[in-house]
């Protein structure tokens, strides 16, 4: 029964990560799958769906097409739609059926690009990984394919926000607060990958002095930007009073020195016996560090999602399954997690519900707090 979830739901899938990351960029995203897949995304994982038009489509894959490997129909359908809608780009990704039959999305995208003249790329999603894997691949591709090389550096100190999607930040004003926080700390914003910025703004990302990576899904794109433009990155979300100040200093220092770093992972204590923060590693790590600084409590991260060694601190742990979560919760001094984790938290261990859109979707959307720059004491008390 290893990794069998009896109580907990799963996080949003990689296909949702792709759609969410590309949603505002004016491209056309096609999920190659049977009908219904798009509805999962739009109903549960996309809070912008009814307020903001975007070209997200499903191919309507049939059993016969899957068995026959009829890629040409998909290519023709996409090409027809692209000619009609004139998207800025076409992204093609897949769900479990194309993964099983080995659909080659990069080859399909190349054929679409050749037929339509519209830039196209394939993403190797399978519906079997979390939203972070899809977001990561999508944003990395955007950074590689659309960020221009002939962009002059900005005169004033500037940054890009990398790895922002509603799946981690919802639509509760957190991303806008991070933008304000950047401005308050003397940073101009070149672009945000990928909320609130157009593809043209993102194309100028190479002109920024530093990149602020706000989720593990943004790390690969930040690395691509470092490789292409030499821009350093700093991983962290400005939550908590003291940590947001410290993060601003780290960001300034990285812009000057050119050295990348992950202040969200620079923590003293692990999860054992202290406060355990569950979730995406950059946000959870930032919250744990903020708890250390604002509350003076040891805190660590329990990570149920894909992450990278540089985003984790000693004592942090992966919790790939429900049993791992329950076991770790029992040893923690308190747990900060999405409310849907509450049933696996033992009685007697204080539980602080912090809804995460990628986990509980719209269930608690209205109560997702905006913690940017705020002292954690007040929130924990509440």
């Amino acid at each position, binding site marked *: 029964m290893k990794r069998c979830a009896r109580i907990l739901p799963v996080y949003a899938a990689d296909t949702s990560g792709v759609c969410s990351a590309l949603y505002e960029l004016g491209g056309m995203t096609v999920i190659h799958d049977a009908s219904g897949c798009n509805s999962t995304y739009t109903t549960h994982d996309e809070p912008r769906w009814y307020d903001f038009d975007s070209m997200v489509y499903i191919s309507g894959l049939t059993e016969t097409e899957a068995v026959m490997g009829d890629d040409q129909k998909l290519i023709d359908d996409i090409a027809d739609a692209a000619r009609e809608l004139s998207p800025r780009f076409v992204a093609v990704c897949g769900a479990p059926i194309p993964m*099983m*039959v*080995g659909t*080659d999305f990069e*080859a399909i995208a*190349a054929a679409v690009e050749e037929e339509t003249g519209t830039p196209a790329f394939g993403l190797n999603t399978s519906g079997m990984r979390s939203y972070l894997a899809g977001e990561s691949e999508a944003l990395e591709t955007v950074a590689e394919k659309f960020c221009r090389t002939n962009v002059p550096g900005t005169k004033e100190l500037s940054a890009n926000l990398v790895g922002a999607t509603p799946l981690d930040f919802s639509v509760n004003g957190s991303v806008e607060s991070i933008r304000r926080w950047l401005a308050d700390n003397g940073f101009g914003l070149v672009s945000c990958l990928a909320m609130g910025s157009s593809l043209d703004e993102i194309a100028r990302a190479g002109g920024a002095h530093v990149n602020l990576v706000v989720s593990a899904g943004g790390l690969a794109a930040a690395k691509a930007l470092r490789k292409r433009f030499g821009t350093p990155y700093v991983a962290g979300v400005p939550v908590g009073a003291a940590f947001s100040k410290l993060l601003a200093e780290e960001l300034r220092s990285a812009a000057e020195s050119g050295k990348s770093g992950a202040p969200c992972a620079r923590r003293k204590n692990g999860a054992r016996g202290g406060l355990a923060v569950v979730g995406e590693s950059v946000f959870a790590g930032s919250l744990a560090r903020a708890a250390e600084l604002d509350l003076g409590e040891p805190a660590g991260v329990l990570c149920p999602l894909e992450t990278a060694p540089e985003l984790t601190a000693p004592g942090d742990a992966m919790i790939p399954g429900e049993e791992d979560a329950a076991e770790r919760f029992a040893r923690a001094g308190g747990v900060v997690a999405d409310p849907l984790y509450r049933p696996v938290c033992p009685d007697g261990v204080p539980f602080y519900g912090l809804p995460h859109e990628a986990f509980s979707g719209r269930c608690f959307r209205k109560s997702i707090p905006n913690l940017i720059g705020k002292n954690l004491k007040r929130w924990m008390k509440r």
Partner: protein
Amino acid sequence: MIKLAVYGKGGIGKSTVTSNLAAAFASLGKKVIQIGCDPKADSTINLLSGNRVTPVMNYLREFDREPRRLEEIAKEGFGHVLCIETGGPTPGLGCAGRGILTTFALLEDLRLFETRRPDVVLYDVLGDVVCGGFAAPIREGYASEVLIVTSGEKMALYAAENINTAVRNFADRGYAKTRGIVLNRRDVEGEEEKVRAFARRAGLPVVADIPRSADIIRCEDLGKTVVEGDPSLPVSRRFFALAELLLGEGEADA
């Protein structure tokens, strides 16, 4: 880097040709990787003195997790050829084609090519291009050229034609192209004539003519390729000639 996929009818001698070619490349000082893409997982056995490397699929089945280090699923054989086998699912279950794709993704995660930096990569593929998984070795980023092994037998030539057609169908996708035909003789009547006629029709060169040889069988009984067993034999020289041709240092015999 030379990246070759070897296709051909089941039982035609693909593994024999691939292993001997790997041994010849290695003897010429090249750093070689051979990846067997067949559930039988016996492609590299004659490079490993009759021993076997743990196939990737077997590893996943046994340990219920992905390998963390290349050494867990790769073994060095004759001439330091790095031997890897995809293996396959439990016979009668699962999807062997998907197994190849999973193995390739895993090898990418383990940064096989970046860390090993080979001069030559050989993919020894099961029989025909029957589904997406078995076309994986000819996708962009893997093999750039295909060798088709055939004898003069009717069904071997039929399979060779199918393989060539499949490869051509992928031309607009940037997949591998057919480099040529390896005639692996079975000594059937009019063999050379039949194979050369096919080659002409397909517009392909015959890049090697491997005679039926008791020496190959004798060496394989000892767990060796004939190139390792006795590199001076005429049949071994044919493999060296093919390796040199592919390295751009020789001429096709067609």
